[in-house]
Structures are given as structure tokens and as C-alpha cells.
């Protein structure tokens, strides 16, 4: 039984995350429609829920075309990387006390590592497509994700200093009296910005800005390979939302309701925030994005780290 328990958790987590990622396509379209004063997909099934099924059937049956000028092995590998790395990160996420696949002592670092490996998917997709728009999108994505990763990790270190552990379970338990969003508000804001940039969502979707680059790094992709990028993006959104919940909003902690329900509610709220960003904010220019990251957010993250460290030492 004890040997089967991790397998059971893996099955449950995989089932929930993949279905949620698919369902989010519908949630996003409906919410965007709500905020933009229109209906959105509401024809297929109750509330248009069947739209998800119709879309996936369409994606699976579309012609899966590999351009003759592309680098085939890398072209096929790229969409798999984004889904694999973001699913890998869920291995260390505790959904409730003890409900975790691998309770690593370096959990937070593992999360950062998995999300930084996700860069390869866009870089390789852009390069292997052998197309100038795809390459430009890939270059943009690489520069953006590399720059924002730096202070994404640094902003999380404030939480690590306060909790005194890299283990995600310990970080959540340390928030029993106060959520870290209060003492680490600056870190929270920086991590949120970095998280949006890391998932390449609007307003930071310059890697695929359709008005200038067709579709950026995935211009040449069709069928389920394109679907993988699509699903990978939503898994990334779920992952960043789960990290925000764990590190700043007390994870599964909460009154009355059971732990996993609290975790799910908080994560869902952040996912909706991500969609609201998309509905509300315009895209910055690429040079603004880069200079904002290096000249403003990186020094702020370092300052936050310094102040947090000093405060923790003083109050000890």
C-alpha cells in the first residue's frame, strides 16, 4: 500500500493538472468575454463547456505538419519540453499536509530549475522552425525569460530566509500565524511580475505578439504540437499560481474548509488574476520590458533580500 501511495498521488495530480489546463482554455475565453462585455463560447453544451472537447478533437485531427526546411528532431522535441518541465515541477508541490509526490529538501530550487528548463522549449522551437519570425520570437523569449528568472529566484529568497527552509511544506507551515504576503509584499509583487513574464502571458507575450511576429516561436507549428504549447502555457500559469499560493498565501492553511480545497481556491483566484491581466493591460515595448527588468526590478529584489536578511537577524 505504501508503495502505491506515491503512484496514486501522481495519477491524481496528473489528472487534475492536465484537465484543469484544458478546462482553462474555456475559463479564459469566458472570463475575457465577461470583462469585455460579450458572451464568449456558449453554444456547445451547458455554458459552452463542450467547447473544450470540440477544440481538442479539432487539434487532434488537424494535419500535423513538419516543414521540410525545419530541423526535424529538435522541432518535435521542443513542444514536449514545455509540457514535461512544467509537469515535472508539480512533483514537489504540496497540495495539503503530506499530499506531495516528492518532499524534496530543496523544493523551491527544484521549482525554479524546472521553470528555467522550460526556456529551452521556446528557444528550440524558434530555432528549429528555420523561419525568421519564429527565430525573432525565440530570441525575444530567451532574453525575456533569462532576465526575469534572475529576480524571480531572488524575490523568492526573502520567503526562504523568513521560513529558514527550502522545503515547500516547511514554508507553508511557517505561515500559520501570518501569510508572507504581509511582511514580503514587495517580494510578492516582484514574483508576480516575474511569474507573468516567465509564463509569457500578456502583457509580456512579446515572444508571440501576433501583431508583429505572426505567432512568434510557434508560427510553424500545427495540430497537437501547437496544442502542446497551448497546454504547456496553461500548466505554467497553474504552476506559478500554485507557487504564489504556497509562498505568499499560506498554501493549504485556512479555516473550516479542508486543506486541498483552500489550496485549490487560492490557486484558482490567481489564475483568474492572470486572465484579468490579459484582459486589462497593454503590451510594453521590448526594450522597455528588458530595461524594466534589469534596471528596476533586479535592484529592488536585491534590496528586498538585504532588508529581509537584516530584519530576520535583528529580530532573532
Amino acid at each position, binding site marked *: 500500500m505504501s508503495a502505491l501511495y506515491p503512484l496514486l498521488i501522481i495519477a491524481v495530480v496528473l489528472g487534475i493538472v492536465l484537465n484543469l489546463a484544458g478546462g482553462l482554455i474555456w475559463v479564459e475565453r469566458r472570463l475575457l468575454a465577461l470583462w469585455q462585455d460579450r458572451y464568449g463560447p456558449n453554444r456547445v453544451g451547458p455554458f459552452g463547456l463542450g467547447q473544450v472537447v470540440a477544440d481538442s478533437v479539432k487539434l487532434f485531427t488537424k494535419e500535423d505538419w513538419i516543414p521540410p526546411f525545419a530541423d526535424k528532431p529538435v522541432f518535435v522535441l521542443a513542444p514536449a519540453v514545455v509540457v514535461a518541465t512544467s509537469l515535472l515541477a508539480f512533483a514537489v508541490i504540496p497540495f495539503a499536509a503530506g499530499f506531495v509526490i516528492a518532499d524534496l529538501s530543496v523544493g523551491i530550487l527544484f521549482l525554479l530549475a524546472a521553470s528555467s528548463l522550460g526556456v529551452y522549449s521556446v528557444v528550440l522551437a524558434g530555432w528549429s522552425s528555420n523561419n525568421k519570425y519564429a527565430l525573432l520570437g525565440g530570441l525575444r523569449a530567451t532574453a525575456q525569460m*533569462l532576465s526575469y528568472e534572475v529576480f524571480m529566484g531572488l524575490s523568492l529568497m526573502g520567503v526562504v530566509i523568513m521560513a529558514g527552509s527550502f522545503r515547500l511544506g516547511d514554508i507553508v507551515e511557517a505561515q500559520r500565524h501570518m501569510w508572507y504576503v504581509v511582511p514580503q509584499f514587495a517580494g510578492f509583487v516582484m514574483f508576480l511580475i516575474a511569474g507573468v513574464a516567465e509564463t509569457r502571458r500578456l502583457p509580456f507575450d512579446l515572444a508571440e505578439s501576433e501583431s508583429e511576429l505572426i505567432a512568434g516561436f510557434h508560427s510553424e507549428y500545427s495540430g497537437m504540437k501547437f496544442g502542446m504549447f497551448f497546454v504547456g502555457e496553461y500548466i505554467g500559469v497553474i504552476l506559478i499560481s500554485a507557487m504564489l499560493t504556497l509562498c505568499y498565501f499560506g498554501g493549504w492553511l485556512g479555516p473550516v474548509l479542508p486543506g486541498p480545497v483552500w489550496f485549490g481556491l487560492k490557486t484558482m483566484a490567481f489564475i483568474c488574476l492572470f486572465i484579468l491581466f490579459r484582459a486589462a493591460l497593454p503590451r510594453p515595448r521590448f526594450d522597455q520590458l528588458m530595461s524594466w527588468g534589469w534596471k528596476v526590478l533586479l535592484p529592488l529584489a536585491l534590496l528586498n533580500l538585504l532588508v529581509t536578511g537584516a530584519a530576520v537577524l535583528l529580530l532573532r
Partner: protein
Amino acid sequence: MAAVFYISSAVAVVATLLTITCRNAIHALLYLIVSLLAVAIDFFVMGAPFVAALELIIYAGAIMVLFIFVVMMLNMGEHAGETALDVFKPRAWAGPSLLALVLLAEIAALVSRQSAPLSGVEISSKQVGVALFGPYVIGVELASLLLTAGLLGAYHLGRKAVTREDEVHGIDTRQSRAVTGDPVVSAGAGRSSHAA
């Protein structure tokens, strides 16, 4: 766990060999990433999860991305690999093989003397930190000096080149045009005259 160690070590060795022999630069870099991932697994199995995580974040997640970034920008043609064919001549292999043999002998001597590498004891990140800022603090400081020097050098090399003339007139085109007497052309000026 010993099996995991040997499998990932074998993957690392094979991937590194392929890195050297692969003629497509991006494919070679991909094999190098696989090799780094395998080494990270080795570290993890040997009880050093902190080092394994850093290997993933810094080497696989940042440095190799920069390598691929640069190769992407270079846009080497299809025949770029042919220039590296000299590497496959036996004469070029003599020196490196000799050095590699020395290393192999050293590893063999080390392995035969020591017991199994898997102690099963996990070195926590706290222990790593205490060691780095305790007995090895001089190494950390030297590394930080080196990095600062590199940062300053990169800043100096990457600075926008300012010529003598720019310093005198400023780099604003409108101003420099006014000095040289060229007419100032604004966007859309030609179009409006067409309309008229």
C-alpha cells in the same frame, strides 16, 4: 540507488561523447544539456541535493541557454560543421587522449581506494552555506572579485561608442542636422505633400 547512479553516469558519458562528435552545433549543445542533467542526478543520488539544484538552475537553466542563444544569433549555414572536420583526424586526438588517460588513471586509483560513493547521508543546504562562508570564505571572495571584474569589463565593452563629434553636438539627430545645415525630415512629411 546505486543502479540510478550508474545509469545516469552512463548517460552522462555517452551524452558527452556525442557532444564532442556531433557536427550540428545546436544538437551538440542539446547533448551537453543532457549530460549536465545526468550529472545533476548523480549529485542528487550522492546526497547533495543543493548542488544538484544549482547545477540545474545555473548550468542547464542559464549558461547553456546563453550558449544556444549565441549559436542561434550566429546563424551558421549548413556547411558550418565541415570546418570542424579536422578535429576527427587521429593526429588531433593524440594530445587530448593522453591527458584523458591520465585523468582516467587518477579516477581508477581513487575509486579502487575508496568505498562506495553512495553514503546515503544528505548534505543539507545549510551545511553547504556554513562550509562556503566558514573555511572556504576566501574562495567565495575571490570568485566574487572575479565576477565583479567581469561585470565591469562587460559594461566597458558593451558601452555605446561615443565619438568626439557626438560629444560636441550631442547625439540628437535634430540638433546635429541643425549644425550641419541638412534639412530636418519628419515622418509622414512626404505623404502630406502628396495629398496636397
